[in-house]
């Protein structure tokens, strides 16, 4: 992707991609390591970025290290290309990476940086998905010491996470984790798959696209390489379930804008105080609407 390494410094005083070539190389080296050990949290030297950590700097450093002039970038936040965060990140890349194209269309992008969602449209081998992660370690909820967590990961000892699931089922008759569902990659490491909803977890499994996860504050990079097994932690006799979006009558709720009954929905409260639902992936929703109006025109 990066055909051009040594670009001259811009007038503003920084090189293509904001990070210097040495920093980008270091990140790429860590990416290669992360891909080689699927799900392993690879430490890297997270740089200071001109925005607060916690605003996607981990994902951004991955993006900036990977992006080249022939790339097309899509940035989404909570499924939307238009949220403030997504707009800011996209503008930052446009400013620091002259020549890079941006898009809102999932299928046009070669690189997608996202927070909280995986696009509804199936990704391809030609694409890389970068997810921003606030808390990279799934074990943090059961073990405060990082040293002990490392040993647990090394030995693939996830029994205490499973106990948490057990307690959940005892108390609520089901596993109540809605986001950041602990997911086992390639049969060993369990990852925190960023705050994606359960809906998106099965889409990590055997994904044709490379999925990279970056935590800027915690200085970790990890990966779900293409066509890798990704299994949510569950019991043999309790199936993993995604959000089902059914109303009181058991009917699948449809998006109020495009009518889709197969997408992940956001719950909204309209001006009159009624609960309505709408696709969380705004691009997907718009495309569905276009298809419908095209059909009507025909």
């Amino acid at each position, binding site marked *: 992707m990066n055909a051009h390494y040594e670009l001259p410094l811009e007038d503003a005083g920084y090189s293509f991609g904001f990070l210097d070539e040495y920093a980008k190389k270091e990140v790429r080296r860590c990416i290669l390591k992360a891909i080689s050990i699927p799900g392993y949290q690879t430490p890297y030297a997270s740089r200071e970025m001109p925005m607060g950590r916690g605003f996607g700097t981990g994902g951004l450093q991955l993006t900036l290290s990977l992006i080249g002039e022939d790339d097309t970038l899509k940035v989404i936040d909570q499924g939307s290309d238009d949220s403030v965060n997504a707009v800011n990140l996209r503008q930052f890349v446009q400013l620091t990476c002259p020549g890079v194209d941006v898009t809102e269309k999932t299928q046009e992008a070669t690189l997608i940086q996202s927070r909280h969602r995986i696009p509804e449209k199936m990704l391809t081998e030609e694409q890389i998905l970068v997810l921003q992660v606030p808390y990279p370690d799934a074990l943090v909820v059961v073990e405060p010491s990082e040293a002990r967590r490392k*040993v647990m990961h*090394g*030995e693939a*000892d996830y*029994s*205490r996470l*499973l*106990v948490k699931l*057990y*307690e959940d*089922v*005892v*108390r609520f008759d089901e596993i109540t984790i809605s986001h950041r569902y602990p997911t086992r990659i390639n049969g060993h490491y369990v990852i925190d798959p960023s705050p994606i909803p359960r809906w998106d977890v099965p889409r990590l499994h055997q994904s044709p696209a490379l999925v990279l996860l970056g935590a800027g504050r915690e200085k970790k990079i990890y990966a779900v390489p293409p066509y890798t097994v990704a299994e949510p932690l569950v*019991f*043999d*006799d*309790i199936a993993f379930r995604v959000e089902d979006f059914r109303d009181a009558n058991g009917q699948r709720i449809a998006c109020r804008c495009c009518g889709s009954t197969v997408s992940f929905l956001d719950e909204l409260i309209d001006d009159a105080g009624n609960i309505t639902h709408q696709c969380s992936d705004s691009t997907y929703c718009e495309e569905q609407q276009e298809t419908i109006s095209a059909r009507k025109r025909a």
Partner: protein
Amino acid sequence: MSNKILSVRGLSRIHGEQCPLCISSTGPEHDTNMCSHCGSVVAAHDVNFDLYRGEILGIIGESGSGKSSTVKMLYFDDMPTAGSATFYDGDVQHDMFALNAAQQRSMRNKRFGMVYQNPHLGLNFQISAGGNIAERLLMSDLRHYVEIRTRAGDLLARTEVSRARMDQNPKTFSGGMQQRVQIAKALATQPPLLFLDEVTTGLDLSVQAAILDLILEIQHELGTAMIVVTHDLGVIRLLAGRTLVMKHGRVIESGLTDQILEDPQHAYTQRLVASAL
């Protein structure tokens, strides 16, 4: 196949820097376990014994004599500074302290069980009683929720904790009940070897008696070999076929419990037995 389950040789644990005089300046004849030259504590030195399938071995001695230290090393809570232990698991022999950390963890989770005097060491008080047992089953790779629940309920019923309390936090249980949950947890993987460290200390006499009964029943039913640590001669008399007497980190006497109680050889043991009569 021999009936031996555990063979301990020269097991030692010294806390501190150690110097060449640590051993010669400590022990019962010096009336201390602390080296006067370097200040190291010889918690246990040169402990030797064999344990057979289904047997209960008692370790008795005053406070600080090295009883817990010995058992902790065998359960991998602590590493020895010298010595070896061989665990005979079916046809396989394991040189316990030569295993790597993951192998030790697996042995501890699947083949051993431990009941501590302090239930806070043996139980997770953040989760339910059933969850505590589930944890051990999950550690031994059982992944079937209904089966985990059934087995946890059965184990609690077996140790006479009502199934109705299975989903409650053991924080709310009496001391005796907490020990029963610990025993159920230790038994979850049906281990051939169990360590019990002062499990009845601090409980009411009637509660003590009931727990000791339970331990004997388990030994009879499951043929579990046990090492029982106590400073209570009554516990030794009731449970242990053979006994080690420890003082200042050394085993000063060992043999059949009846013989030790009737004809103690070491002056210390003689005083111990006399004072208990």
